């Protein structure tokens, strides 16, 4: 009796709540956009009469999956993504009745290779990074593909320091890792004739070679927590780490960014598009929810205001690299008019 009563009471309370209308924006998605979205949400909650939106950090892919599950208040209104939405995801969305989605570009994020500032600064090309980290590399004579045999940086290029290759980076589940693979490894791999030849003969193997990261201990998967990588780099001066620019920005007194293709990962270089390893950050809005969930338009206005994602906005203080003024204007217009995404 006690049991039935307790369960019944709980269930009725729970269902009563579920039936209530939601008066709070719900956002899911990328952990890279999370620090920026939360800053906007907090400002939005403080300066308007609306409740502060709830933001979950689910990763870009997980966020889009939740976002595209359907229309209605049990589904999120906005999803953050550190990559563009895929065609297949747009199709899933459409299949579940989400006809119109607005894409809002937020700005850029640089992915940096970095080491302790007590160690010498390193200048790498994408090809050198590929040779250091790929699972399969061209053999010495360049004719065949072999397992990665490089153990020190100086073996790759005599001008590099004679230290063991040791790179701490995110695991494959991370968006940062996806972007690093795409922007560095997959771009560099085609500059080796032996790998390029594969592209025509064996597409699957080509993809595997280009995106495969070595698993013999030279690349250390240090978990999703970038702060952990920062701490490890402080202790180990020979190691390099891969993480988002905002962590370098916060720890400039301990770490230095390595040059890639001769460009240092500075705020200016990333925003000018000179630094080669940077990606765009987005969020996607369910147009059907604008009007039913209170505060959606105002949230979009807050995010795309100059004081948030502008050159000197509070998001820039948190490490977001802003777009140029013309692009911001275009994004702001698209957000205000809820221009639906077409792919």
């Amino acid at each position, binding site marked *: 009796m006690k049991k039935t009563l307790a369960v019944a009471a709980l269930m009725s309370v*729970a269902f009563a709540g579920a039936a209530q209308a939601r008066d709070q924006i719900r956002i899911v998605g990328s952990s890279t956009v999370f*620090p920026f979205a939360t800053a906007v949400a907090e400002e939005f909650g403080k300066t308007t009469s609306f409740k502060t939106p709830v933001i979950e*950090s689910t990763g870009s892919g997980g966020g889009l999956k939740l976002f595209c599950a359907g229309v209605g208040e049990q589904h999120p209104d906005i999803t953050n993504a550190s990559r563009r939405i895929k065609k297949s995801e747009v199709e899933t969305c459409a299949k579940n009745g989400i006809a119109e989605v607005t894409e809002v570009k937020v700005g850029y994020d640089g992915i940096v290779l970095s080491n302790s500032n007590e160690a010498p600064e390193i200048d790498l090309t994408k090809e050198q990074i590929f040779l250091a980290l790929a699972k399969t590399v061209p053999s010495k004579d360049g004719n065949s593909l072999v397992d990665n045999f490089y153990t020190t940086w100086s073996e790759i290029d005599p001008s590099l320091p004679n230290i063991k290759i040791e790179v701490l980076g995110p695991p494959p589940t991370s968006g940062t890792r996806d972007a690093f693979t795409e922007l560095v490894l997959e771009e560099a791999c085609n500059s080796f004739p032996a790998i390029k030849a594969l592209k025509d003969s064996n597409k699957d193997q080509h993809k595997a070679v280009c995106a495969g990261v070595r698993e013999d201990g030279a690349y250390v998967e240090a978990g999703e*927590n970038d702060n952990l990588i920062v701490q490890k780099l402080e202790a180990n001066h020979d190691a390099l780490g891969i993480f988002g620019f905002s962590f370098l920005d916060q720890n400039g*007194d301990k770490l230095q960014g390595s040059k890639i293709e001769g460009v240092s990962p500075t705020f200016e270089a990333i925003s000018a598009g000179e630094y080669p390893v940077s990606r765009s950050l987005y969020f996607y809005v369910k147009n059907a929810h604008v009007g039913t969930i209170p505060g959606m338009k105002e949230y979009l206005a807050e995010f795309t205001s100059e004081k948030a994602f502008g050159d000197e906005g509070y998001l820039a203080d948190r*490490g977001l690299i802003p777009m140029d003024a013309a692009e911001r204007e275009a994004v702001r217009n698209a957000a205000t008019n809820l221009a639906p995404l077409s792919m």
Partner: protein
Amino acid sequence: MTDMASLMEDRAAAKVISDKVQKPVDWDSPKIARNIKKRYAAERRFKIYGLSAIGVALLALFVLAFSIGSKGYTAFFQTYVQLEINFDPAEIDPNGTGDPAVIGKANFDDLIKKALLARFPDVTDRRDKRDLYGVVSGGASYDLRERVMENPNLIGQTRKIWLISGDDFDMLNKGYIDANVDEGSRRLNDKEIGWYDALVSDGAVEKKFHSRFFTSGDSREPELAGIWGAAVGSFYTLLVTLFLSFPIGVLAAVYLEEFAPKNRFTTIVEVNINNLAAVPSIVFGLLGLEVYLNVMHLPRSAPVVGGLTLALMTLPTIIIASRAAIKAVPPSIRQAALGLGASPVQTVTHHVLPLAMPGILTGTIIGMAQALGETAPLLMIGMVAFIVDIPGGALDPATVLPVQIYLWADSPERAFVEKTSAAIMVLLAFLILMNGLAVYLRKKFERKW
């Protein structure tokens, strides 16, 4: 030949016997002395192994407590900056209405900015001004508003007010930013450090107890972030868990122990309960996602769902502990009750359960403590989220203490490092409190037969 051989054998056998009989063990022989010495040494070695095991465990505990404590204690203090604020009536209440609605909408941020510029009149460049405004936290204007709302007489006066400082200045004051490294590679430039030094020489920088840490919800500004939202979320979650898992767990244990027939079915149930106790918690999270969110459409991120999910996880712990406690009640108690004419249900409710209660409660509290420290299942049901508002009930979006630790540990701002350690201390304090309660209950109500 055979005679000779048998004779030899006999002699050998006789010698053995005579040795045994005639030479008793010589306890003083060097061989025995060596043997005894060896045994004592083995004894001592074993003690040393045991002591060193305890030593290693204590050392690990000490290192953990020290590293968390030394990093985290500074989070309980916060840097404040004293500024001379002019509560300009033209700015706050231009028409002199005295209406709280008007005062509440005034731009208190502007008052602080003016005060900063008045203190450092030589700052004129736009960029420098922006840096200067960072001396004071963005949350200080809300404090100022509250102060004026409480005491409208302030309007028109000029007062020296302590304002909460920005996180970078807080870090500098706590010594986490080294002013001696190259300007380009630290968070604060030379000018900002100059302002800080000027304020320090005025006596206008002070560290005060950071009560906000215990009273506010999460924030992206480290100096405004607090643990209260997560603590309330944990409370609601555990409340739901307790109300669900305690009655179900105890009833299941009582039935299995006192009423269930011993057959194949109950054996299977028993084995499965024991197995469930060892299932990784993330599996319960997936179950919660599927059942509560996808089938029953309960709200995401709500403590009610977190509590339901964690209840599944703690049930086996409670059932196993309760069964052990019920089993420990001597059969004579039951026989006496039944002999005096009590029904089986009366026997259980009047005699067995009250006597088993200390053990049941101990098991429940330990199960609750486990649930308090759990993050993995909550990840699946959306409780790993940035939530500013303090939850007002079990249906509002909420997060819990360990999740708050996880989120802060993942934040880039350096000031969150000390917040993370401080939050760990708060969580540990709750765990110690709960375990202490379990020990107390056991000591107070325990009966020995």
